[in-house]
C-alpha cells in the first residue's frame, strides 16, 4: 500500500499540484462492524478512477485511524467498510472524526468537517425522496400502458411530477448552500439524474464562477455541453401561429384552416404506405373518440400519391375525420409549411390557431388533449 501512496504522491508533485496541508486524517469509532477492514478511496470527478489511498483495520474497541497524503486541494473521499456501507467525506479540514454504528449507520456523526456534515444531511434528505420518485415513475409508467382513463393517469402523473420537483428542490437547495467545491461537484454530478439540462448547465455556470479553476466542475461542464449539443432542437413552429392553408379534401370538398378558428385542431400528417402511421392510427382513433366532443377537430393530411389508396386506408383504419390528399407526397405545400420531416407527425392548434404542441405520441397525445381541452 505504501508504494501506491508514494507513487500517487509522486505523480501529483510532478503535476505541480502543491498543497499547504500534506496529510488527511480520518479517525473515530465504528461499532458492530461485520468485518474489520477499511479502505479509503479518493473520488475525483473528472480526473481519474477512484484511487485507493489506504487500508486500515478497525480495532477491537471499534476505533480506527487512517492517515493519508492529501496532495491537492479539496476532494471527495469514500470510506468503505468491509461488509458495510460506504461513507462519503470531504477533506475540508485536515482531521475528521467519524462515529458510526453499523446497526444504524445512516445516523453517523462527523466532527471537524462542515462539508462532510452537509453532505450527510443532503443524503438524508435526498435518498428517500429519490426512492419515492423512482416508485412514482414506475407506477406512472405501468399505469399509462393500461386501459386506465387519462384522468386516472393524470393523478399518477401529478404525483410523479411532485416527487420530481421535491427531489430537484433538495438538490438545488444543497447546491446553493454548499460552500465546498468538492461537495459542490458531487452534487452537480448527482443533478444529472433528475434535473433538466438547462438547469444543470446554469448551476454549473454559477459554480464555475464561484470555484474558479476547480477541474471537476470543468469536467461536468464539458459533459453538459455535449448533452445540450446532442439534444434535438424543439419544433421550429412551436408556440407560433399555424401557417394558413386551404385545399380540397379527398372527396373534393374545399377546406380552409381559418374556418376552424374557435376550435382546437389536431393536424395529423400520415400516409397509407407508411407502417408507422398505420400503427399509430388506432391511437389516433381512440383520441378522436374520447375528445371529439370537447371542441376538437381532427384533420388528416395524407402524403399518398393516390387518393384511392388513401381512401382505402381511411376506411380500413376507421379514420372518421376529414382528410386532405393533394397527391403531391413530400412536395405538398402543406407538408412544407409545417416543416414535416418524419411520419406520422402531428401538431395541436389552440382556438386562436397557435401551435401549442407537436409530435405527440401514444398516451402523451390523449393526456395533452385531456389537459388542454375544455370540459
Amino acid at each position, binding site marked *: 500500500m505504501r508504494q501506491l501512496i508514494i507513487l500517487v504522491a509522486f505523480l501529483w508533485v510532478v503535476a505541480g499540484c502543491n498543497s499547504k496541508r500534506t496529510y488527511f486524517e480520518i479517525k473515530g469509532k465504528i461499532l458492530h462492524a461485520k468485518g474489520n477492514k477499511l479502505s479509503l478511496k479518493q*473520488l*475525483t*470527478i*473528472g*480526473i*481519474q*478512477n*477512484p484511487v485507493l489511498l489506504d487500508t486500515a483495520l478497525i480495532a477491537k474497541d471499534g476505533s480506527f485511524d487512517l492517515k493519508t497524503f492529501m496532495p491537492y486541494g479539496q476532494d471527495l473521499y*469514500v470510506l468503505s467498510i468491509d461488509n458495510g456501507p460506504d461513507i462519503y467525506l470531504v477533506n475540508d479540514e485536515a482531521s475528521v472524526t467519524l462515529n458510526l454504528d453499523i446497526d444504524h449507520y445512516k445516523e453517523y456523526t462527523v466532527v471537524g468537517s462542515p462539508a462532510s456534515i452537509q453532505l450527510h444531511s443532503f443524503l438524508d434528505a435526498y*435518498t428517500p425522496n*429519490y*426512492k419515492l*420518485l*423512482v*416508485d412514482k*415513475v*414506475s407506477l406512472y*409508467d*405501468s399505469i399509462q400502458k393500461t386501459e386506465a382513463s387519462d384522468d386516472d393517469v393524470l393523478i399518477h402523473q401529478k404525483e410523479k411530477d411532485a416527487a420530481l420537483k421535491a427531489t430537484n428542490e433538495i438538490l438545488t437547495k444543497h447546491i446553493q448552500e454548499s460552500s465546498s467545491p468538492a461537495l459542490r461537484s*458531487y452534487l452537480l*454530478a*448527482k443533478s*444529472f*439524474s*433528475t*434535473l*433538466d*439540462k438547462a438547469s444543470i448547465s446554469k448551476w454549473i455556470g454559477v459554480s464555475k464562477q464561484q470555484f474558479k479553476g476547480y477541474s*471537476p466542475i470543468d*469536467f*461536468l461542464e*464539458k*459533459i453538459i455541453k*455535449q*448533452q445540450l449539443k446532442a439534444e434535438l432542437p424543439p419544433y421550429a413552429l412551436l408556440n407560433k401561429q399555424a401557417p394558413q392553408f386551404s385545399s380540397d379534401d379527398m372527396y373534393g370538398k374545399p377546406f380552409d384552416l381559418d374556418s376552424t378558428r374557435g376550435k382546437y385542431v389536431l393536424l395529423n400528417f400520415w400516409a397509407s404506405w407508411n407502417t408507422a402511421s398505420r400503427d399509430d392510427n388506432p391511437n389516433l382513433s381512440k383520441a378522436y373518440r374520447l375528445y371529439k366532443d370537447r371542441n376538437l377537430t381532427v384533420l388528416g393530411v395524407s402524403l399518398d400519391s393516390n387518393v384511392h389508396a388513401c381512401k382505402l386506408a381511411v376506411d380500413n383504419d376507421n379514420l372518421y375525420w376529414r382528410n386532405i390528399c393533394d397527391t403531391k407526397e413530400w412536395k405538398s405545400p402543406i407538408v412544407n409549411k409545417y416543416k414535416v420531416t418524419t411520419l406520422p407527425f402531428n401538431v395541436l392548434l389552440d382556438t386562436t390557431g397557435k401551435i401549442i404542441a407537436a409530435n405527440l405520441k401514444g398516451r402523451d397525445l390523449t393526456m395533452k388533449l385531456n389537459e388542454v381541452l375544455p370540459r
Partner: protein
Amino acid sequence: MRHVGRTILTLAVFLFSCKQKSSAKSGGSYTISGKIEDAVPGEIIICRQQTMEGKPDTAIIAKDGTFTFKGTIDEPIFASIYFPTSVVESARQQAIGLFLETGDITITAKKDKLMEATIKGGVCNKELNEIMEMTKPLGSRMIGLSDSIKQFYAANNTAAATALQQEAIALETAQNKALAKHIKDHPKSYTAAYLAFQMNSYETNLDSAESAFVNMDASIQSSYYGKKLKAVIDALKSTAIGTMAPAFTVNDLQGHPISLASFKGKYLLLDFWASWCGPCRQENPNVVKAYALFKNKNFTILSVSLDEDKAAWQQAIENDKLSWTQVSDLGGWKSPTAALYNIQSIPSNLLLDPTGKIVAKDLRGEDLINELNARLK
C-alpha cells in the same frame, strides 16, 4: 459498480446454451423476411437458435438488402441474427434478438444498429417488444440518467459515474420489479418464460427463481425455457453453500477419468475456467499463489475447463503454470459439468471441505487467500 441496465443486457443475445430436447407443441413453420438497407449485397447473415440444436441457418443478403430465413420449430425459441464478423467483435451488441415462432416475421434494421431492429409478427415478438420498451422509459424519463452514466464512463471517469451509483441501483431495482411483475402476469407466455430464465440465471436468488417457476402454467413449465429455469433452480439448490457438492467424473489431459469423490479428505477448490476467458487468465496467478501457499496444508485444487479445443487448453495450462489436476469434458459452454453447477460466467469457483460439502463460493483475489488462511491455519 453494478452494471446499469443489466436487464437490457440479459435480454440481449446469448450465443451459448445447453442441449435440451423440446417438446412438440405450439410449433410450426416460420418465415423471416428481413431488410438491412445498408448491408453489403452477397454478404452472409446467420440465424442461430438459442437451443443450438443443429447448425445455424445462413442466408445471403440480396441486392436490395433483403434476406429470408425459413424453418420449423417445435415451440417458440429465442434466436439471434447476426453477421459472421460480429462473432469476433462483441456479438452480443451486434445481433438482432427475436423469437422464432409460427407465421411471418418481418425485420428492418441498420447494419451498425442490429440491436435496435424493428421486429414484427407473432405474439412472442410482440411481447418481447413490450418488454424491451419496459426496460427503456424509466431511465429516459428520469432525464437521461443512463445517458449521463454512459458519458461519464466514455470520458473515462468512473468517479463521476460512482456518484450516480445509488440512483442507478434504485432504477435497476424498480425495473427488475416491473419485469418480475410481467413474468407473474403472463404465466402462459413463452416470452415471459424466456425472460424468467434470463433474469434468474444471472442472479443467484433461489426464491425469485422458484416463485417464477411455480407461477408458470404447466405447459410453460415443460417448455424449453421452463425446463432451463428448472435446471437453474436445481443447480442452485444442489450447489448452495452447506450442501454436498454434486458428484461428477471427467477426463484429465491424458484421458484418465478423474472423479470428484477421489478428493475427499482434503479441502478442495473446484475452479471453473477456460483458456479463452481473459478474466480467468488474469485470475490464474492468484490461484497459483494460493496453491503454492496451501498445498501442504491439506488443500488442493481441481480445475474444470470450459474449453472445446484441447490444444488451446493444454497450452494455457503450460503458460499459466497450473500444476494441479486439470479436467475438461471439452464441451465449452455446453459442458455438462458446468451445467451441473449452474456456471453462467467464469471464472467461478467453489470451496469444498474434506467431506465434500460446499463451504464457500466465488472466491477471488485476496478473498481466496483470506478464506484459506482462516480455514487452514
